């Protein structure tokens, strides 16, 4: 990990208290002088993971660049709920062009900064999963291939949410969406290759690729800060549960994100120049049922006779991830071991 | 206005030939236009290019349908393409071949034209000799200068020098000069034959 892992034992929960931490370890959100890049007043749903993730990510990027930042946003929930005409909740320089071109537009902004000698001004591009893995994929690959100086953040809520929850290339197997209804012999999204966007980013050999979730916001901030220390194309894939689209309770957003990690379904790691360099290990290995059963997009797997075969399939995916990334360390973390001795 | 049409195959520098000729005319203070007929570019496919030379600005953008001169860089085209289409009866023809016009079987067909304006020139052989490569385009321009006197050999040499550099340019000029002299001699012979 980029930063020292923090152990919280104060209460029997995952509640985190900043007042226990050194100033340097505190979240940027605890700083009254934070940028508030995405300020209050936006129209996101209650419990929106993307609004949460974007606020943390952009404030971290603003901190890392001393406020010398331009953001480019693809069409999608974030863009729509943050700029309801005639208002904007962005306090930073922000550009929205189209759905599929955020990476290319960001490349253009970065080129303008370079040609004008404004090398301290950095560029962040952000999009949902659709704007990243589907319609934006060609442009994203181009930006990666040229190693353009852009940090691209994908807020992955695993479907086209703003248009009414339709399947995207990032929709996981078995999930119900409006275009992969839970009906018929193969309910929900069919199993396929799937687009493993973090690994596709790594395959381009770019300087930095990382995944994160809104369950560990310190980690998200750290990764954004780490990314902004580097130049060239960088990619951050953030899992952001969508209560509406996933059918989870709006108070469960962080819990759902944590379960995605703890089951192994969403590996959290960092990679440098195409090679995995660190992994956030699972604290309590959890069966996928705990994660799936609190989202009504998977309800069809559990109602009536249910679909234990699909659940088993999903469990197999989780197990494969755990194996591949080494997400479970039999003897727990080194730190913990040292603390216990 | 004097209109030239070039026929050749992709890879033989037909387009460059027209361009160089237009540069030569330009260098002499005239107006000139050169452009290719835009077939799918493919080595070996028939290619046509055009050049217009005039003392007034050239406005026309149509292909050269009534050429005053034809330069045929690849003799195999004669039986494949109607290369002589639209040729003025006062027209000039310069064919890249080591054969004579009669040996090509064109003697009768070309009977309606001025005999001394229809010549062949072994440009590929000259190119091989001087350049080491079978690129006859600049060479033929030397022959053209002698045949039509539309441009001087000096202007052709200048245009070659603007297009190519170093030894490539030098050798092309030498080859073009050789072609020029060949054509001059051929013309003299034809004249002698005519007066005899």
């Amino acid at each position, binding site marked *: 990990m980029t930063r020292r892992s923090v152990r919280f034992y104060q209460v029997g929960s995952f509640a985190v208290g900043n007042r226990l931490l050194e100033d340097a370890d505190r979240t940027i959100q605890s700083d009254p002088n934070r940028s508030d890049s995405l300020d209050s007043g936006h129209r996101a749903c209650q419990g929106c993971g993307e609004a949460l993730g974007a606020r943390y990510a952009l404030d971290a990027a603003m901190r890392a660049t001393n406020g010398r930042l331009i953001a*480019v946003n693809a069409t999608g929930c974030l863009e729509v709920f943050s700029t309801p005409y005639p208002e904007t909740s962005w306090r930073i320089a922000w550009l929205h062009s189209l759905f599929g071109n955020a990476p290319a*537009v960001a490349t*253009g902004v970065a080129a303008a900064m370079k040609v004008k000698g404004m090398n301290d001004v950095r560029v962040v591009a952000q999009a949902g999963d659709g704007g990243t893995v589907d319609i934006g994929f060609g442009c994203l690959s181009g930006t990666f291939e040229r190693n353009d100086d852009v940090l691209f953040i994908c807020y992955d809520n695993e479907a086209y949410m703003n248009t009414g929850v339709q399947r995207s290339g990032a929709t996981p197997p078995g999930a119900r969406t409006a275009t992969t209804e839970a009906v018929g012999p193969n309910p929900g999204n069919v199993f396929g290759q799937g687009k493993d966007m973090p690994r596709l980013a790594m395959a381009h050999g770019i300087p930095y690729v990382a995944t994160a979730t809104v369950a560990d916001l310190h980690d998200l901030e750290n990764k954004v800060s780490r990314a902004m220390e580097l130049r060239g194309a960088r990619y951050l894939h953030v899992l952001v549960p969508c209560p509406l689209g996933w059918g989870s309770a709006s108070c469960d957003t962080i819990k759902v994100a944590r379960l995605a990690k703890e089951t192994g379904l969403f590996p959290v790691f960092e990679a440098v120049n195409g090679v995995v360099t660190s992994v956030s290990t699972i604290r309590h290995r959890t069966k996928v049922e705990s994660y799936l059963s609190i989202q009504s997009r998977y309800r069809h797997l559990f109602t009536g006779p249910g679909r234990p075969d699909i659940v088993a399939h999903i469990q197999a995916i989780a197990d494969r991830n755990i194996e591949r990334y080494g997400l479970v360390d039999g003897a727990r973390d080194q730190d913990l071991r040292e603390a216990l001795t | 206005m004097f209109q030239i049409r070039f026929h050749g195959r992709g890879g033989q520098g037909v387009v460059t030939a027209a361009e160089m000729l237009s540069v030569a005319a330009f260098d002499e203070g005239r107006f000139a236009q050169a452009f290719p007929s835009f077939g799918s570019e493919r080595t070996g496919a028939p290619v046509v290019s055009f050049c217009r030379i005039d003392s007034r600005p050239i406005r026309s953008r149509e292909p050269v349908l009534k050429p005053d001169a034809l330069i045929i860089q690849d003799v195999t085209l004669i039986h494949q393409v109607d290369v002589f289409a639209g040729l003025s009866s006062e027209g000039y023809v310069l064919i890249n071949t080591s054969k004579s016009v009669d040996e090509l079987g064109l003697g009768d067909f070309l009977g309606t034209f001025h005999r001394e304006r229809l010549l062949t020139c072994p440009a590929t052989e000259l190119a091989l000799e001087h350049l080491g490569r079978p690129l006859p385009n600049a060479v033929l321009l030397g022959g053209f200068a002698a045949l039509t006197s539309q441009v001087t050999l000096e202007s052709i040499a200048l245009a070659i020098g603007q297009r190519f550099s170093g030894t490539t340019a030098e050798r092309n000029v030498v080859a073009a000069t050789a072609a020029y002299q060949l054509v001059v001699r051929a013309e003299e012979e034809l004249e002698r034959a005519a007066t005899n």
Partner: protein
Amino acid sequence: MLQQIEGSRAVAETVARCRPEVVCAYPISPQTHIIEAIGAMVKAGELTPCEFINVESEFAAMSVSIGASAAGARAYTATASQGLLFMMEAVYNAAGLGLPIVMTLANRAIGAPINIWNDHSDAMAARDAGWIQLFAETNQEAADLHVLAFRLAEELSVPVMVCMDGFILTHAVEGIDVPEQGDVDAFLPRYEPRQVLDPAHPISIGAMVGPEAFTEVRYLSHLRQLDALELIPALAAKFALAFGRPSGGLVHSYRTDDATTVVVAMGSVLGTIKDAVDQRRALGDRVGVVGITTFRPFPFEEVRRALSGAHRVVVIEKAFSVGYGGVLAADVASATHDMSLTLHSVVAGLGGRAITQHSIESILDDAAAARLPSVTFLDLDRDIVNSERARIGERRRSGPSAENVLSDLGSVASRIG
């Protein structure tokens, strides 16, 4: 300096002298020579400071231009045909955002059937997008229009596309006076954006606009184009003074003063038409030609004025709206609807078919003899058409029309024109 060079080269050098800061493009015939030349200049350090970006698609090319322009850089790109269509979403986006991007459109037919040769269907596909569209008659004008385009675009905050006929102009070598750097600098001030992404003064660009305000925003962009109708002639006058030759403007007339028949056209075909006009004049016919240089905004008033004495107007254009008819003809008809003249639409030169002086003169003959139909497809091979229609009539599975027509034509490689 006056040089005998390729049109593309002249455009590249002129664009370079306009000091673009971000240039990006995706290669497509027949624009390639322009972009290659600019790329080489940047790489060799001759054009600096400039970022030259090889993008992965035309959609990316316009998108990069959008980002660069919004961030305050002078942005330039070039495309044609299919490429224009591939970037169409971004083309509308650039106009809607009011970004002064300049783009060269090397006019080429749009498929299917795939065709790399010249016509104006690509420009027509973008005519409603909010870009100013200028059409060059010669390579000299093509080069000059780029200088005018940057100035026009940045003054109005409207993107401008300079249309030049693919292959016919881009690949033609002729005498072109490429403007000198000092003269361009004097004519074209630094880019001072009306809106810009600046961390020091953050604004949001690209908000969603609902029914409450969309009409007003679009109307404002329409007004900016109408402003162009004033600014274009003013800039053309300034250009003529500064560079010593006329270029640009809205329309220009040739021998129309006492003309009873006037031809209207755009682009390089005007040269051939002028030769035809001179030929007919020598025979005593009172004919003239009006060249439209600015197609969008459409100069209704100037077109009316230019055609005021004509009895007969023949619009010759390289495009048509399928199922409708001529596009330019419709605009000219609209401009002259209350004038007493007969309008003829001639669709010619599609997919690169040569428009010959001979054919133009035939059209003029037919017009004079009052036997020119209201819509003509010039040099149409009726036999081929009829043969395909018969085939379609006989068989359900008649196969793709394009392939059938090509089989009927036989070998095309041996054709000249």
